[in-house]
């Protein structure tokens, strides 16, 4: 059964439609790259799953209607890495990652051995061991991004939705992150990540969903979605696309139109 199923999903802000007629189904084992130019509706699509924007149509999480799902139960099924990366207070890295256990621990219950083990795994996965006692506000942008991803991983939900997880990371950490997301998906979870870097999307995702002007214009394996024709019409770019033994390689070369 699919972990996330959107049927005829639409979002309007005032009279302006942002998304319409979205049908999407994501199953375990998939690493879905959500791509599309600025303003295509990627973030709105992600936020609508969590009820952060009012929407019409059906949203089912693990086969259950999302809008009627109790918040804590939903949080055990889907984790979110939002676009907003501002951290309010100078708490330690370890404490921040442990916040991911919020939907799993009771009101008065302290974190148990299992919670600590999950937090440790997330810290190790994001290579944060050396930073664990540092206040998060003192970290570099890339370090902070890794801490926030570790926090989302600590939520230990079968579906992880990340809004531009690679933003602000250097190439080595971008690759390490995509590798982790691929590992998580391969372990039987599902990951949806909005991405601006088409090279990373082509190389790592099992499936790409291309949004343009609030609609899904293509959905399938990277090789089928990323055609020269589509890149020209949706993104307005010319790109070098090549199938190599290591996978699909894509490098945008020139803009064919402005804006």
């Amino acid at each position, binding site marked *: 059964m699919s972990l996330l199923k959107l049927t005829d999903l639409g979002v309007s802000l005032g009279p302006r439609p942002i998304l319409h007629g979205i049908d999407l189904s994501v199953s375990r084992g998939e690493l879905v790259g959500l791509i599309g130019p600025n303003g295509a509706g990627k973030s709105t699509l992600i*936020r609508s799953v*969590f*009820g*952060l924007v009012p929407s019409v149509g059906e949203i089912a999480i693990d086969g259950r209607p999302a809008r009627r799902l*109790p*918040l*804590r*139960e*939903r*949080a*055990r099924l*889907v*984790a*979110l*890495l*939002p*676009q*907003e990366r*501002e*951290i*309010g*207070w*100078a*708490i*330690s890295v370890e*404490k*921040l990652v442990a*916040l*991911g256990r*919020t*939907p799993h621990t009771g*009101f008065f219950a302290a974190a148990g051995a299992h919670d600590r083990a999950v937090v440790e795994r997330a810290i190790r996965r994001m290579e944060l061991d050396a930073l664990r*006692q*540092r*206040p998060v506000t003192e970290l570099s942008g890339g370090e902070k991004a890794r801490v*926030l991803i570790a*926090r989302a991983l600590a*939520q230990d939900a079968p579906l992880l939705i990340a809004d531009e997880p690679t933003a602000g990371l250097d190439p080595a950490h971008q690759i390490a992150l995509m590798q982790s997301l691929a590992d998580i998906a391969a372990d039987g979870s599902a990951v949806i990540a909005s991405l601006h870097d088409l090279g990373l999307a082509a190389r790592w995702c099992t499936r790409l969903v291309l949004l343009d002007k609030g609609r899904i214009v293509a959905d399938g394996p990277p090789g089928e979605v990323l055609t020269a024709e589509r890149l020209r019409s949706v993104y307005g770019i010319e790109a070098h696309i090549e199938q190599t033994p290591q996978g699909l390689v894509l490098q945008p070369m020139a803009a064919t139109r402005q804006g």
Partner: protein
Amino acid sequence: MKDRAGPLILCLAVLTLLLFLLSMLTGPAALDIGTSLSAIVTGNDEAIALVMREIRLPRALLGLMIGASLGLSGAALQGHLRNPLAEPALLGVSASASLGAVIALYTGLSLVFPLALPLMALVGAGLAVLVVQALAGRGSGTLTIILAGIAVSSFAAAMTSLALNLSPNPFAAMEIVYWLLGSLTDRSMLHVQLSAPFMLLGCLMLLGLGRSLDALTLGPDAAASMGIDTGRVQFVAVAGTALAVGAATAVAGAIGFVGLVVPHILRPLVGSQPSRLLPASALGGASMLLLADVLVRVIAPGKDLKLGVLTALVGAPFFLWLVFRTRRAML
């Protein structure tokens, strides 16, 4: 950043207890420690028991509860709004409670029926929170809450000025001004009974927000995705503050700076985690107000130095120093 929140909270609890006892032992009637404390329990020496039970005990109890209310709501609002400059007065609760009290003084209602003053103040606080909630809407951004609070505050302050402007005689104006300065002098057990239920309920509501405020460290979207009902958190934070600070203002007048400064001082000591800061700030606020109330009696006995004046007098320079230190840390 070792976890020192537990021992710190214990230390603050002991400090609060000591200052509570010190407050009980401070006053114009020079009573020795043994007799005064035993009189309160046994009631043997009637004169001493009367002083202790009817004058000093309510004063110390109010200092404890009002300080805790101010410190706790400051910490809760700063956590909810994710802004270290937030303070209880920001919601317009204090200004509106003051306005209610001023109306009671102005109309002479408080002369006919003394409890009219705190009751009117409570009504003022209640109205303020209704207006702020209605203006801000459920689960709206923090900016709308702040703007709504400023609007309500400004309106209440304007109405208070109007009352002063039109006050029938200089004595009424003096009475209003003195009340606005904030004080714990001559409060009775009746004041305690009237305000305690509101302050206790408000504080319990705010203390229950710990986990949600921790999650809100990551922003409202992330908190919502972790199962936090952010609309409910906003309602509880605003309503809890209104109950606690409204009741505090109703019996003691406006006492500034405690709710702003206490969470500021304690935040680095608890590793910045909002859930740890809540109980620490409640105890810290209680300690600060009890100490200030002892000081007004010791510094100027017989002069009736107002508590609110002292907290502002000490609080403002301290705040300047905080700003200076923050600027230096950023350089």
